[in-house]
C-alpha cells in the first residue's frame, strides 16, 4: 500500500465532502492510502493570492508543503487549483534558490524550513500511472459498470497547463481521463472545444460572475450539443462552477441544462459500488438522479 499525505484544499471538504469520502475509499481499493495532512490550509487560492503577491502565495503554499515534508510523505490531492499552488510552488522553490531563500526567511518565524524533499501528485495522475495503479486495475475494481452512459470530461486548466512546466503531454487533445472513464464501463464523449476553461479561475468568478458564467455557458452549449449524461472533472472548483454555475446560469441567463457534474473520484466510487448516499450526491446543486437511474 502506497501512502500519501492527502491535501484536501477547501472546496472538496467544505462543499463536496462526497468527493473527499470517495477519494479515501476508491484509492484504498487501488492500493493507495491517503493520510491526514494535519493543519493544512487553503493551498492558497492561486488566483486570489497569486494576483495579490506571488511571494505570499509561495510562502503560504510552502507552509503546506513543509507539513508534508515533516511527515516524509509525498502529497496527493484532488483539485487542479491546489495542484497549481502546491505542485507549482514546490517545483519553483526547488528550482530557484532565490525564491526558496525568500520563502524560508518568512517560514523561519514559525520554525519551518522548506527543504524540497517531497513530490506532489494529483490523485488522477496516480490512478492513471500504470506503475502505480493504471487503467487495467481501475477496470478490475469496477463492481457496477456505468454501462450505457455517455460521459464527457472536463480536464480543467491548472493540472496540465502550462504544458512546458508540466509532464502531461498534449494539452490540445488529451484522452487519458477518457481512458479512465471508459475503464468504468461508460462511453467517453468528445465535444467541441473540450479544453476551454470553466470560467471560474483567476479570481474571475468573484470579480465578474456574469462574465465567468458566460464562459461556463459556452461549455454547456457544446456539451449539450454532444448529448451527454454527465460531466466529470478532477477539480472541485471546476465542479462548483459547473454544478452551482448551472443554477446561476438559469438565474442570470434563463437557460437550463440539468447536467449532472461528478468528480472522477465520485464516479469511480459509484462504479466501485459506493451508494449515492455514501457520496453525498444530494449535496450537488444539479440532481444526479437521471444519471443514477441509468446506472443503478
Amino acid at each position, binding site marked *: 500500500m502506497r501512502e500519501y499525505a492527502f491535501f484536501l484544499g477547501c472546496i472538496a471538504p467544505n462543499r463536496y465532502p462526497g468527493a473527499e469520502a470517495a477519494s479515501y475509499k476508491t484509492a484504498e481499493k487501488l492500493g493507495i492510502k491517503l493520510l491526514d495532512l494535519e493543519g493544512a490550509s487553503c493551498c492558497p487560492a492561486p488566483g486570489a493570492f497569486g494576483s495579490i503577491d506571488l511571494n505570499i502565495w509561495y510562502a503560504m503554499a510552502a507552509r503546506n508543503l513543509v507539513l508534508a515534508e515533516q511527515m516524509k510523505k509525498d502529497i496527493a490531492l484532488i483539485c487542479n487549483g491546489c495542484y497549481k499552488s502546491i505542485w507549482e510552488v514546490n517545483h519553483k522553490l526547488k528550482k530557484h534558490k532565490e525564491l526558496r531563500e525568500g520563502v524560508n526567511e518568512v517560514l523561519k518565524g514559525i520554525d519551518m524550513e522548506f527543504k524540497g524533499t517531497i513530490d506532489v501528485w494529483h490523485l488522477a495522475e496516480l490512478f492513471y500511472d500504470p506503475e502505480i495503479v493504471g487503467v487495467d486495475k481501475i477496470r478490475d475494481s469496477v463492481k457496477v459498470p456505468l454501462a450505457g452512459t455517455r460521459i464527457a470530461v472536463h480536464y480543467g486548466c491548472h493540472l496540465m497547463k502550462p504544458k*512546458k512546466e508540466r509532464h502531461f503531454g*498534449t494539452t*490540445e*487533445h488529451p484522452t487519458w481521463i477518457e481512458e479512465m472513464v471508459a475503464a468504468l464501463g461508460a462511453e467517453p464523449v*468528445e465535444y*467541441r*472545444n473540450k479544453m476551454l476553461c470553466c470560467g471560474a479561475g483567476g479570481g474571475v468568478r468573484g470579480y465578474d460572475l456574469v462574465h465567468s458564467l458566460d464562459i461556463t455557458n459556452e461549455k454547456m452549449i457544446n456539451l449539450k450539443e454532444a448529448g451527454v449524461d454527465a460531466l466529470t472533472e478532477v477539480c472541485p472548483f471546476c465542479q462548483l462552477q459547473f454544478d452551482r454555475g448551472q443554477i446561476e446560469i438559469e438565474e442570470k441567463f434563463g437557460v437550463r441544462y440539468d447536467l449532472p457534474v461528478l468528480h472522477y473520484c465520485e464516479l469511480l466510487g459509484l462504479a466501485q459500488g459506493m451508494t449515492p448516499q455514501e457520496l453525498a450526491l444530494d449535496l450537488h446543486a444539479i440532481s444526479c438522479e437521471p444519471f443514477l437511474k441509468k446506472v443503478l
Partner: protein
Amino acid sequence: MAEKKTRKEPAAKKDTKKPVSKATPAPAATSPDKELGKGARIGVYICHCGTNIAGSVDILAVQEYAKTLPNVAHVDNYQYMCSTPGQKKIEEGIKEHKLTGIVVAACSPRLHEPTFRTATKTGGLNPFRFEMANIREQGSWVHMHDREGATAKAKDAIRIAVAKAALLQDLVPKSVPVTKAALVVGAGVAGMQAALDLANAGIKTYLVEKSPTIGGRMSQLDKTFPTLDCSQCILTPKMVDVGRNPNIELMTYSEIEEVEGYIGNFDVTIRKKARGVLTPAEAEARGIVGGGCNGCGDCDTVCPVIKPNPFEMGMKPRKAIYIYHPQVVPLIYTVDFDSCVKCGLCVEACGEKKAIDLEMKDEFVKVKVGTAILALGYDIFPIEKKDEWGYQKFENVVTSLEFERLICASGPTGGHLVRPSDGKTPKKVAFLLCAGSRDNTGVGKPYCSRFCCMYSLKHAHQIIEKIPGCQPYIFYMDIRSFGKMYEEFYYRIQDEGAKFIRGRVSNILEDPETKNLYVMADDTLLDRPMKLEVDMVVLAAAVQPSADTDRTRKLFGVSCSLDGWLLEAHPKLNPCGTTTAGVFLAGVCQGPKDIPDTVASAEGAASAASIPIHMGEVELEPYFAQCIEEKCAGCGMCVNLCPYQALSLVEKEGRKVMQVTEAKCKGCGTCGGFCPGGAIWMQHFATPQIVAQIDAFLLGGEQ
C-alpha cells in the same frame, strides 16, 4: 606587483624546458631550422579598424607595450592595415628593418590572413613568416565596454603572436592535381542545375539521387510564383537535358556510402540500391539484346500490391513496381522490395525484355572526383507536432505540399481541389502562414521558411481562378514579399479578392458532423478575436533539412548550424563554399530558398566547384605532419589514430618508421599530440612554437 611576481617565478621553469625545444632534431624531409628563432626580428602592426578596434583598445598603449617585447624590431599602427597603404607599411618595414617575421594585430585570420601573407611575400619574406593576433572579434568586439580589459587582452594576444612569429619557418605549399570530374548529390532543381552547368563547362559530372527519379520538390509543385508558369512545364526540359547530357552520369535510386580523400582527389563510394529493374544498358551488359525497361508499364498493370505514392503525398496509390509520375527521368520502373510479394506476375508481363530481376542486390560503385556539390534539399516539418492545428486529426486540415498535389492537373484529383473528408469542393479555405516557422517554443522552427508567404499567395490565386466563388483567407503575421515582382504579386492577389487577416491562428476546432473547421484567430488590426468557419485549412508548414542530410554531410565533413541547415564557409562572402575544401552547397540544404534563389545558388556552387577543376591543380596549405625519423620508434600507434588515413608505416634503412601522405594530412595534430616519442613535427604548429605561445601567455613575456 603581486601579479608580476607570480609571473616571474615560473620563469625559472622555462629555463629547464629550453633544452628540450633546442634539442628538437630536424626531420629528414623538410628540416625545421636548427637555428629556430635565432636572430628573429619581428615587426608588429596594430590596426585601428576605424573605431572597431580603436574604439575600445588603447592603440598607443598597446604599441608602446609591443616595443618592449623580445625580438620585436619595429612597431607601427594604421587606420586600416588591410588597405593598400597598410599593406605597403608591411612591405617597406620588412626591407627597412630587416624583419624576419610579421605580426598584424587586427581582425580574425578568417578575414585577412591571406591579405597579410601576400603583403609579407611581396615584402620579400616567405608568406608563412606571418602571424595574426585577433584583437577585434575576440577582443574589442566582445569587450566593447571595457577599454582597460580589451587593451590588456590585446597586449596578451600580441605577446603570444610575437612569441610564435619568432619561431616561424619558411614553408612551401604543396600542389596536387585535380581530377577532372565532379559529384553532385541530390537531383532536385538545385542539383540538376549545378550538374548541367558543370557538364556544359566540359566537366564529367556524377549526379546522385536517392529517389527513383530526378526533379525533387519542384516537380511536385503545380505552378510557380510570381509568374504562375507551370512547374512541371519549366522543369521537365531541364530533366530531359540532364538525362541526355553526355557529360552527366545519372545515378538515381542511389546514395553516398563513403567519401575518402581531399580536394582534387575525392574517392566516393555510391550505393546503387537494388531497384529490381534493368535499364536497357544494364540489360545489354547481361547479354539481353534489345531488352531492359522501356517504361511500358505492363508490369504496373499486373502488380497486385497497392501502396500509397509518396510523390502524391500518399493521396494516390501506386503498385509495388512503380514510377512516381509519367514524366520521370529516367523512365525506369522500380520495385519496392519492402512491399513486393515476389509473385512474379511482373516478370511474366515484361516478357522478352527481361527487365525485371527480383533477386537484385545493392551494388557499390566507386568514382573519383575533384570537387563535390551537396544539393540535399528539404522536407516538410512534421506539423502534427503543433497539435493546436489538428493536422492528421482533422481530415480537412492539409499541408501546402498536399494542396499542391490536390490543385495540380496531374495530381490525384486531376486538379479538382476537394475536401479529403467528403470530396466536396471547398468554398472557404483558410491558409495559415508561419505554421511551425518563426516558432521559439522548441517544437517548431525558429527561422522563417522564406517561401511560404509567396506560395500561399499563389494558392489563393489558384482557388480564386479554379473555383468560382471560393474565398481564400490568409492568416499572416507579416507578408514577406521581398523578391523581384513579389510585392506586385501580393498586390495582384489582394486585388483578386483574397482576404488577409493579420493574426496567427491559435487553434482549430472541428465540427464533428460537417467536418467543417473553426479557425480561431485575433484580427490584430481590428483588435477583435474571430472564429471563422471554413471548409478547409492549408498549413504553410515550416521546412527542415531532408532526412538524410545529417548522415550525408558527415561523410563530407561539412558542418551544420543548430537548426540542421548546412553551414556555408561565410554567410555573405562565401555562401556556396564549406569549410571542407572542394565541397560546395547548392539550394535549400544551406537554408530555405525559393526557386530563383535555389537556381542562383546552384549556379554559384557549380561555378565555384569548377574553378579547381579548370585550374588543374590546387595548393594545399603546408600544415601537414612530418616524421622526425631518428625519433620514431615505429610503434604505429599514430597510424590508427589518424582520422584521414594519412599515415602509414614504411621500412627505411632496416627499420619501421611512419610516413605521411601529405596531401591527405589535414594538419589536425592528433598524431603530433599523441606521439609518445615526440617524433612528429606539425608544420606551422610545431611543439616549440606552441610551447612558446603558452609560455608567453603564462609568463607574461618578461624574461
